[in-house]
């Protein structure tokens, strides 16, 4: 912590006076709305809630299902699994993705694995333990009913995937293998070498394609959703752009599901795909869907460090590597430029093993990331200089290779280590890998109730796009679990309760809600193409990313966040006056696509900073410099912040004025688990 002055609990508060024992850092940036609550989770023993809800959810007669239409935006694990399952049930499903095939959704890139409380290893795992680990890992900022349900259905997911032909790793006896993954002490992570996401997604994709053939699902690829249609208080469709012809299309339905993934690309550099965006969620937010905990970002500890300004994205090295690799930096700053192989054992600092003896290299991601940053800030980072510091730490396989043999390591991690060599030009079997944290996942997302319904009636949100299960930090291998839980096992039950009131009265394409939404989309496109300024979309995106990483990244302070908000507002003004997008609206135009995404990222960035500013506590991936223990660990303030911050759009729907966002608090109540300060020591 050497170069971190001013970050004790009481310092740095020049802007406002604390009021009545509590700080209100974001005073002036927001207004306070009514508290909200989830009204759908049944009361009673946590272990019975999901069964009760499933039973109480009304049924839809199979003969009526064909008459009920469902739009699903997204074909990742959350959207693909839902499309397949709802198609199988007989509903009329329309599925959208911006890629040229549903199989390319970014879930494909997940490497490490998927959790399930199968307890195949008899090592003490259970639904309750998976629940407990997930709530604890999320630093007690998630909703307990949702998390319990997630743990409960986790085992069904593995059964389903195996039945579809997902080629999980197996033991010699032919039974499923699994391993342990960051932040837990049991072995419950199922995997398919380093390509688990790919294999799970292909399973969901194939199930969905089967429904396409059977006529229950219609797929719209290279289509980007640009607006949600809310008619008489109900989500009734979307406006989408055919990215090949540029045609603006209206799609109407009885219900809309957003499974559009995460918004980590607000940081420009992240491990997300180039096209990952917040547009679907943000357009819904502007129409009344609350955005919950937008500042909760996961910075993943094991990514390949940035190599230069040209960089377009960052590449994750699965944290399963932390099972066998040991993380270290030189003890002495003067060793940092040396060949690591020449640094003797006694001069290496295996800092995670030192600071956290019981979890060692397997501490949760937020802790591993922050400690890597601390080591580099202390001047003990390795690799090339980025600015004033070397930004990298070693992940070393030497001991694992000596213990298990090179073949075993190769079999487990081959594709990852190959990828590393391809990108860096260094052989990780010989030279320790260099890693550094990078933005990877967002726990924040649209607010949903237990039924996964947002604050707009008839708009459901699943997968990474919602906020519901991971609190302030997500444990490894649990996003895949959540995506598939939502898609295969949760949404199909909760959505039927909603649909049992349908089919809803038909609305025509001339309904004012439709014509307005269309007109907004067309006007925006027209605007992008006519600003005719001097700067490319990418240049704005990169600048936004720098602001976010600097001030809303691994460590946040009130002062920095206020500065960031000013900078973002200025950037936004410049964007709308100096953007340059060439080409036309009526053809494939990738700059135009990006312009829409970046415009939404800019607004989201501001809200993230406001959320981070409001939350004057450290929890999970959100680390406020003003709130830490003496030895630099995150310090929560349960008395003030044990709530979900659900933000309502406070601006004018049609203009670019964000107005003042309205904060609704949902209190987090734990009945099945006791809140504790996390300790991984």
């Amino acid at each position: 912590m050497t170069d971190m002055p001013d970050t004790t609990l009481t310092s740095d508060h020049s802007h406002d006076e604390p009021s009545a024992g509590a700080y209100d850092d974001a005073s002036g940036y927001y207004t306070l709305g009514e508290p909200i609550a989830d009204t759908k989770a049944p009361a009673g023993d946590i272990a019975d809630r999901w069964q009760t809800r499933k039973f109480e959810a009304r049924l839809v007669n199979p003969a009526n299902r064909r008459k009920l239409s469902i739009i699903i935006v997204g074909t990742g694990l959350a959207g693909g699994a839902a499309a397949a399952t709802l198609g199988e049930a007989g509903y009329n499903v329309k599925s959208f993705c911006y890629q040229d095939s549903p199989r390319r959704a970014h879930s494909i890139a997940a490497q490490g694995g998927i959790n399930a409380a199968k307890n195949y290893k008899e090592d003490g795992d259970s639904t309750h333990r998976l629940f407990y680990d997930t709530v604890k890992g999320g630093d007690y900022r998630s909703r307990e009913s949702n998390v319990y349900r997630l743990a409960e259905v986790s085992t069904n997911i593995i059964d389903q995937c195996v039945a579809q032909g997902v080629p999980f790793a197996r033991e010699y006896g032919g039974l499923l293998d699994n391993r342990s993954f960051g932040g837990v002490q049991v072995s419950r992570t199922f995997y398919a070498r380093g390509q688990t996401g790919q294999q799970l997604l292909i399973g969901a994709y194939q199930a969905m394609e089967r429904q396409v053939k059977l006529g229950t699902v219609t797929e719209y690829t290279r289509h980007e959703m640009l607006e949600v249609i809310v008619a008489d208080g109900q989500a009734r469709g979307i406006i989408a752009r055919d990215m090949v012809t540029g045609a603006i299309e209206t799609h109407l339905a009885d219900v809309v599901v957003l499974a559009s993934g995460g918004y980590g690309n607000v940081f420009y550099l992240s491990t997300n795909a180039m096209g990952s965006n917040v547009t679907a969620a943000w357009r819904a937010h502007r129409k009344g869907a609350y955005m919950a905990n937008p500042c909760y970002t996961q910075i993943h500890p094991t990514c390949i460090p940035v190599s230069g300004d040209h960089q377009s994205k960052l590449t994750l090295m699965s944290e399963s590597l932390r099972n066998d690799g040991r993380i270290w930096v030189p003890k002495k700053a003067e060793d940092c430029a040396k060949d690591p192989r020449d640094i003797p054992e006694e001069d290496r600092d295996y800092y995670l093993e030192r600071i956290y003896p019981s979890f060692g290299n397997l501490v949760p991601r937020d802790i591993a990331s922050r400690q890597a940053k601390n080591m580099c800030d202390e001047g003990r980072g390795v690799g090339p200089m980025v600015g004033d510091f070397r930004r990298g730490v070693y992940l070393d396989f030497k001991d694992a290779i000596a213990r298990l043999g090179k073949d075993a390591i190769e079999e487990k991690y081959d594709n990852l280590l190959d990828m590393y060599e391809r990108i860096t030009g260094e052989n990780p079997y010989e030279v320790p890998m260099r890693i550094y944290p990078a933005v990877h996942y967002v726990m924040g997302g649209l607010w949903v109730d237990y039924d996964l319904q947002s604050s707009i009636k008839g708009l459901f949100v699943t997968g990474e796009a919602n906020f519901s299960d991971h609190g302030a930090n997500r444990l490894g291998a649990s996003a895949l679990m959540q995506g598939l839980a939502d898609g295969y096992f949760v949404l199909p039950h909760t959505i039927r309760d909603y649909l049992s009131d349908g089919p809803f009265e038909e609305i025509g394409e001339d309904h004012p809600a439709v014509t307005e939404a269309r007109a907004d989309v067309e006007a925006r496109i027209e605007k992008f193409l006519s600003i005719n300024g001097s700067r490319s979309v990418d240049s704005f995106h990169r600048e936004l990313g720098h602001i976010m990483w600097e001030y809303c990244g691994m460590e946040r302070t009130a002062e920095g966040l206020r500065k960031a908000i000013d900078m973002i507002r200025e950037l936004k003004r410049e964007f709308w006056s100096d953007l340059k997008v060439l080409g036309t609206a009526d053809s494939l135009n990738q700059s135009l696509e990006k312009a829409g995404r970046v415009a939404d990222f800019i607004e989201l960035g501001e809200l993230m900073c406001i959320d981070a500013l409001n939350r004057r506590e450290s929890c999970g991936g959100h680390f406020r410099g003003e709130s830490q223990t003496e030895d630099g660990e995150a310090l929560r303030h349960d008395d003030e912040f044990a709530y979900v911050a659900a933000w309502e759009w406070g601006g004018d729907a049609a203009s670019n004025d964000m107005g003042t966002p309205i904060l609704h608090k949902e209190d987090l109540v734990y009945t099945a688990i006791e809140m504790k300060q996390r300790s991984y020591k």
Partner: protein
Amino acid sequence: MNLTLKIWRQTDAVDKGKIHTYEVAGISQDMSFLEMLDVLNEQLNELGEEPIAFDSDCREGICGMCSLMINGEPHGPEVTTTCQLHMRSFNDGDTITIEPWRSGAFPVVKDLVVDRSAFDRIIQSGGYISANTGSAPEANSVPVPRDNAVRAFNVATCIGCGACVAACPNGSASLFLGAKITHLGELPQGQPERWSRVVDMTAQHDYEGFGGCTNIGECAAACPKEIPLDVISQLNRDLRTAMKHGH
């Protein structure tokens, strides 16, 4: 490094298209091939010329979105995807020709972007195991011998990029098709539909206008995921068996 790029430009599916020549300077060895194209696109935008359309998404070699014929080779000179190809594979002063996949079944959409939806339709015709959600038995109730599981996995790593088609003088998608047939055929869960699957998928493959396989082997040489040629033997064997069974 400084490079001369000869790039195919075509405004839409009906345009005839032609090669344009561009110069880029100051390219670093550590850039990926697509980052090099990003640099060019920034330059073009500056100059008022519409940027070149090309596909990419994950940029980690797993989604299968990127493509490109680079100096006549699908995904360029290394065994990897275009997005994972790095500029250290080229030399200062090189001239690089960049074209879209060339195959009747993959029509060009614009510049370097092609339409690969034929692959989705091949999967729709049978590339799955029918197992409705909720109907699955306990996962460990059906053990899968490890060798089968490993082979199934190895071929299931196909990313659906289409390089095999682009490489094949006949424009055949047999490697892609064989990979799926082998993946599902290796697993006990895939047996009930094994014979109808191979017949239906092959029919769809032919219907889409992909050519027949004459054992040239260019596909496997171009495949970024090293799907082995023996999946095509497996495909042919399964097809013969299916025919014998009267499918």
